[in-house]
């Protein structure tokens, strides 16, 4: 079932690029198997897959939280594992469950993390402007994060990413657990950022959102990229069926119908 990525799908001058990226743990688990992907400026790459497919492992390698066994992870052409400090100047990160300092207000959190990114040229008005842009009410700016809902925290997280103004954004399950309205607002922001020229790699379970916004979609299973589709290839295909077909392949290996049912329910 594994589909070889052909050279047509390796873009020129990509901002995000994985070249034969492999991660094998000491216990023998192959978490990522020779992954290739590339994302240009102004593109969203939707990385689909079940739990343990290798989505978070990929992002963790790009963030230099773990080292690849072989292959390369490049951000703006910089090796993320050999020169991580330089590579991190070019990326922003929004996790599945944005956790900031609960006793800091939204503004204090934004100020702290934006300064940590090396940006010290902002004034308070800039922060407030971006917080408003991501849909946070002005009365929430001075509230402590411990009183925020998950949706509000995700918005604050994306505000920090916007203010860092890095060309690359990694989103790890960003809409997971959000209510439909909050999810929709979040996706709208991501599209805006894409339109501003950011290269975005988004891991998700959510086929519908991925189909809605992604310029490329990669389906991962057991650490391997089993299917890759461009925006053009997505037209007229039943992505859900393709996804389920690949998961059936996955289920053949695991031999558990209950797991398949659970997974589809989760999707």
């Amino acid at each position, binding site marked *: 079932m594994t589909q070889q990525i052909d050279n047509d799908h390796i873009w020129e001058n990509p901002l995000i690029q994985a070249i034969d990226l492999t991660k094998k743990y000491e216990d023998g688990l192959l978490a990522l198997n020779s992954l290739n992907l590339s994302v240009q400026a102004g593109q969203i790459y939707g990385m689909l897959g079940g739990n343990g497919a290798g989505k978070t492992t990929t992002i963790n390698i790009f963030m230099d939280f773990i080292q690849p066994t072989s292959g390369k992870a490049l951000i703006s052409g910089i090796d993320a594992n050999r020169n991580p400090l330089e590579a991190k100047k070019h990326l922003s*990160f929004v*996790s599945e469950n944005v956790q900031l300092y609960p*006793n800091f207000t939204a503004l204090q959190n934004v100020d702290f993390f934006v300064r940590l990114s090396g940006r010290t040229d902002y004034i308070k008005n800039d922060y407030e402007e971006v917080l408003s842009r991501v849909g946070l009410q002005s009365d929430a700016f001075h509230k402590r994060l411990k009183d925020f809902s998950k949706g509000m925290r995700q918005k604050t997280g994306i505000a920090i990413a916007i203010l860092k103004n890095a060309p690359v954004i990694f989103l790890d399950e960003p809409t997971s657990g959000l209510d439909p309205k909050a999810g929709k607002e979040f996706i709208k922001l991501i599209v805006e950022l894409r339109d501003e020229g950011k290269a975005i790699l988004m891991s998700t379970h959510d086929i519908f959102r991925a189909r809605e916004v992604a310029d490329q979609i990669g389906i991962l299973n057991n650490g391997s990229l089993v299917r890759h589709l461009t925006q053009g290839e997505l037209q007229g295909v039943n992505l859900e069926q393709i996804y389920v077909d690949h998961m059936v392949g996955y289920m053949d290996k695991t031999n558990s119908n209950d797991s398949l049912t659970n997974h589809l329910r989760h999707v």
Partner: protein
Amino acid sequence: MKSNRFTISFAVCSVLVLMSFYMGTQNYKSTRAQYEAAITENLNQLSANTDWLGIQHTIIMPPNPLMALVTGVSNDIGRTIDMRTRGELVAENSRYNDEPLFAIFSFMDLEFIFGVLLSLFAILLAFDAINGEKQNGTLKLCFSNPVPRSTYILAKFTGIYTGILLALMIPLLIGSLLFPLMGIQLTADDWLKLGLIIVSGLLYLGLFLGIAITVSAFTKNPSSSFLAGLIIWILVVLILPKSSVLMAGRLVDVQNIDEINAQKSRFRAQLFLEDRAKMSNFRTDSQDPQEFLKDFNAFMGELSDVRQQKIDAFEERLNEEFNNRVDYRKSVALRIARLSPYAVFSLIATNLSGTSLELKSGFLNQAETYQNTYSDFIQSKTGSSGGGFRIVLSNRSDQSEQKEEPIDPGELPVFEMHQNTAIETIKSSIPDLLLLIIINLLVFGTGFMRFRSYDLR
């Protein structure tokens, strides 16, 4: 939660430190008043005497202002010595002996606050420094930025340390300013020593901060690191220093002091019996009673001198053997105790404040030096060294007509206790200060190395 933790710590630190300054000041003033009253009482008693040979002169250890902040052993050892022209001197009447209640509920001085309470606070403030951030998810967000791990761990340490410093320095400065206002005058040397006590306390707190951060980098969740930190604190602060004395006791055998004293008593009794037998050998050709007495006193004085020489030699040998063993056991105990940073800090603080283990021997040594001056003075006044038995004749019939003049106690040489200068004290504290710095570096280095390979996910 962390913000609340800091606020509570700041409030508690302020109350504790200010309370220790206040209580220390009151304690010092009360000790000072007792000292001055005892000196006056001694002089009053002396002035009732008409003969220098019969006086009961007591010397008293003067209180030192830094004792107010670091009591050390000052309350445990005897503060008074009944001065004799010869023989062994014994320090008696310790504060705890006079007021046993304080022995149970001892003073909450700076050493206790830094050594026991604030070290626990340091653990409470930093036990989740690393794994808490990981659990909260903020660690990943921090490291999605170009932040070197070394910078992060250093910033973590200095950030929490600065918080502790702020929480501590304000009450410490207020306390120090209140000190002279409350009537305690410190010399420049005292200020320097106090400054170093605080510096060593801050080094000690830095160590516990390092321990907490290191433990949080080795454990998965904050509850585990809190438990591990607490166990280390109990071992370092409560168990190791106390068990060092027990271990040294098992390793080095020392004869019981009661056995030594019994040997001394037996020897003295034996010599006394021998001398009593020799008294029958007293012969004189003098018929005049005054001449007879003069010869008899000379005979008894000679016997007494010889006996005392024998006693001194015997006791000196016993004391030397005993003291050598005790010193050896003490050095073994201190070596074991120095495995605990609390013991190291305690030794530095008590040494700088002049209330270390050396206080008792220092007091006795200076009393022995004074004993020579005192003995010479009595000799010059009475023509006798003042020991042994003597017979004094007095004519009771004309007592009213020939009333003897009382002695002038102002003539007595004054006992002054020499305090080590700041330079002398600092010199003797340098090895322990270095040890504290080395332990700090080792602990922080371990945490630093651990964090370099820490799984940030």
